[in-house]
């Protein structure tokens, strides 16, 4: 790569971290032996938690519905192994807080017997709504990490008449290669899934964006898509965060998603390659989403690579399978740029988990933060065109509205700014903190507004009642006076005319 390329061919945003993808990406896919127990959380997606429909002690088959979707945005959960429901209790969530959340524990019978699945010979004969329904019933959610229920997105795409489906094979996070692996090993499934999603949303073309550091995946996908002219494989420059939908849309179509709009409103919809493969399985094979490829990588792992594992498998079991060279200094769910730190390894594999990283001490070392030297590197790297150092300067003095003035809400938390910062200032931490504070302030505001509205309504009501009482009293008095006057008038009717009497009463 010449230096001219650096100036003209690459996008002006983003960073280029050392990708650490190989040798893990090149190691053949391994299948995890069925673990003894799996812990299937009820919230593995954006939206309402699933509602359990099994009872403790019940025998379940692999793929059997464990918990049903609840609400408009939700997804069901299925048994990843065959066996017995052991308990419905709490496990530690894969979240920085380390707080518990509800999960169904299944003790495996070691047989891995599937439910009877319904094979569909020609899914393209189905109505688009049926594709969405099958994907929803199979619990398919965005597997790139967003875990948004896919069927909801299909419906949105269909309603807004999306023309172009963008398939995200960017996988720009360092260390991760699960999407790479699915494209290399299951390209046909991915391409079939892409075509099913196109059918579901009525798109005319699909652009599969794959970073050019994955030549094997590009070749495999090109071969699989050779006979489908509507599916175009598009290599994109290797640049973090290429796998962020806004940046991928811009790179592939030149379109920009307005800051207050959704991608579908500019005629595109983004789905991840692994999600497409899951749609293929859900629609064509009738198999719910119960397994996934997960990358096990990092300096503390003896044999890094990709593992095909049932959901709900504990990280402990995954680490035991790949072996540890030593005590990991840091465990991360997802990639090093946007992943979630894990407090310990007794945490289940969830639908959105593309990787588990076990860093050794050298990888986990974080340099001490220094003062901002206003070098502007963060602003140059920001893929959204924001000014991280200005936002951080406002947040440092708790001026969250000031940070909002620099469009803090548009920040996608990609971590480019914090990555390039020579002073190692944890900028994303600042922004997450400020976003949380702003959200809390918004909630407080809503509450005080509601209280204020109620209080105002109350005083208005009291005022109204008082007025009504006064009016009623006045009316009564007037009636009484009128009656008295009438009486008086009747008494001396011949003497005075009625006009005068009326004038007195008004």
């Amino acid at each position, binding site marked *: 790569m010449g230096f001219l390329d650096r100036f003209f061919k690459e996008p002006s945003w983003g960073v280029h971290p050392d990708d650490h993808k190989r040798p893990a990406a090149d190691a053949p896919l391994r299948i995890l032996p069925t673990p003894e127990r799996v812990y299937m959380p009820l919230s593995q997606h954006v939206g309402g938690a699933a509602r359990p429909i099994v009872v403790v002690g019940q025998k379940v088959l692999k793929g059997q519905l464990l918990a049903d979707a609840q609400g408009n945005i939700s997804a069901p959960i299925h048994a990843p192994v065959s066996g017995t429901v052991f308990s419905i209790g709490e496990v530690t969530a894969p979240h920085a807080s380390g707080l518990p959340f509800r999960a169904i524990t299944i003790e495996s019978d070691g047989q891995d017997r599937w439910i009877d699945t319904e094979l569909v010979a020609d899914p393209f004969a189905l109505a688009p709504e049926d594709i969405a329904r099958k994907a929803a019933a199979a619990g398919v959610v965005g597997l790139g990490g967003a875990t948004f229920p896919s069927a909801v997105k299909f419906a949105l795409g269909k309603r807004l008449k999306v023309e172009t489906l963008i398939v995200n094979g960017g996988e720009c996070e360092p260390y991760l290669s699960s999407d790479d692996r699915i494209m290399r090993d299951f390209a046909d499934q991915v391409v079939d899934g892409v075509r099913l999603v196109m059918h579901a949303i009525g798109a005319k073309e699909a652009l599969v964006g794959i970073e050019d550091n994955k030549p094997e995946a590009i070749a495999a996908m090109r071969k699989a898509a050779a006979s489908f002219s509507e599916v175009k494989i598009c290599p994109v420059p290797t640049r973090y965060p290429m796998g962020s939908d806004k940046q991928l849309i811009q790179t592939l179509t030149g379109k920009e*998603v*307005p800051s207050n*709009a959704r991608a579908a409103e500019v005629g595109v919809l983004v789905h991840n390659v692994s999600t497409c493969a899951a749609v293929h399985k859900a629609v064509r094979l009738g198999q719910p989403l119960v397994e996934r490829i997960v990358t096990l990588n990092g300096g503390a792992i003896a044999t890094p690579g990709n593992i095909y594992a049932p959901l709900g498998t504990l990280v402990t079991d995954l680490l035991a399978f790949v072996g540890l060279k030593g005590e990991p200094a840091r465990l*991360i769910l997802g990639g090093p740029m946007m992943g979630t730190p894990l407090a310990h390894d007794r945490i289940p594999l969830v639908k959105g988990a593309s990787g588990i990283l076990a860093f050794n001490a050298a990888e986990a070392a974080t340099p001490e933060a220094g003062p901002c*030297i*206003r070098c502007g590197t963060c602003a140059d790297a920001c893929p959204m065109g924001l000014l991280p150092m200005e936002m951080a300067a406002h947040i440092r003095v708790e001026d969250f509205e000031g940070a909002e003035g620099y469009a803090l809400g548009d920040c996608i938390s990609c971590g480019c700014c914090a990555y390039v910062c020579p002073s190692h200032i944890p900028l994303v931490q600042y922004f997450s903190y400020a976003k949380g504070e702003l959200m809390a302030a918004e909630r407080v505001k809503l509450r005080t507004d509601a209280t204020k509205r109620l209080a105002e309504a109350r005083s208005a009501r009291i005022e109204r009642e008082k007025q009504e009482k006064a009016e009623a009293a006045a009316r009564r008095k007037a009636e009484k006076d009128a009656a008295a006057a009438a009486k008086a008038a009747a008494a001396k009717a011949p003497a005075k005319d009625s006009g005068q009497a009326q004038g007195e009463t008004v």
Partner: protein
Amino acid sequence: MNENLGSPVAAPYTTTSNNPGRIMATVMVALAPSTLYGFWLYGWPSIYLWLITIASAMLGEAFFLRAMDRQASKALTDGSAILTGWLLAVSLPPWAPWWIGAFGGLFGIVLGKHVFGGLGQNLFNPAMVARVALLISFPVQMTSWVGAAPLFAEGSPGPLDGLVILFKGIPAAFDAMTSATTLGFSKTEMSRGVDLLQSAAHAPALSMIGERAGSMGETAAWLIIAGGLMLIIKRVISWHIPVAMLVGVALPAAALNAYDPAHFLDAQTHLMSGGVMLGAFFIATDYVTSPNSPVGRLVFGFGCGLLTYVIRTWAGYPEGVAFAVMLMNALTPIIDSHFRPRIYGRNRKGLPLQVAD
């Protein structure tokens, strides 16, 4: 297993190997060739002055950090005080007395940087604060230039003579060395009523190589440009400020020279003399005191160039880079708030883009 695996900090969990120390070191490497040329051209006194200036800047930094109960060793090794001292030294007359460097280094660090709150907080470029303070307080010493007196050349001061010059002033033996700069000469001549066309014949020669009278490290334009290009390629600085500043000087110079060559120096002379090159690549590009959006940098750079030209042409001083940079430093917060980069999905005014149907 270790129970403190993931302290609850936000991602990312990987970071660049870059750090402020490395950035400062890169700038020093880029600055070294022109400085070494200055050492060679002006000999021992300039080397001593350089050392004294840097030492006093570091002393000021250490003293202030200690006074604020901060660890001095860490801040000293990041190189920012050395760089401030260095930039000040190369903008000084090469044979200036020792106390110019000593006072300047202290002044720049203390009043230019620490009273604002230290690294990253200062409004003005510390080296320029010091230079302007020195120029106003000690105009004679700050405008006494010498011609070329290359190291080891016959008639040049040796190591001991250098010390004498530094501590006791320029002895009579080396008096012949003193010389005027092109800008100073033409300004003086103009004030005597001799126009540029007449005075040009006697004017001190300008040289692309850098063999002329001037500040310690500002004469070798080609070495400064080479260092500046290295910084741009290494992405330590962006091209915007240097290019805009050079254009800001060259454009009005070329226009007015075409209009009246008898009263306005040509663009090449303006670019090649004084501190324009050094200012464009090394001084105006100081991170802390320059804007951080590309458009803002262009405005800032052009302003530096234009003000330099205006001061040189119409003001009392023959050279105006330091004043121009400081004036634009003062405008940096305003430029920053006016010229923000366009945000993805928003227009230049910051409003969301319209969805085209």
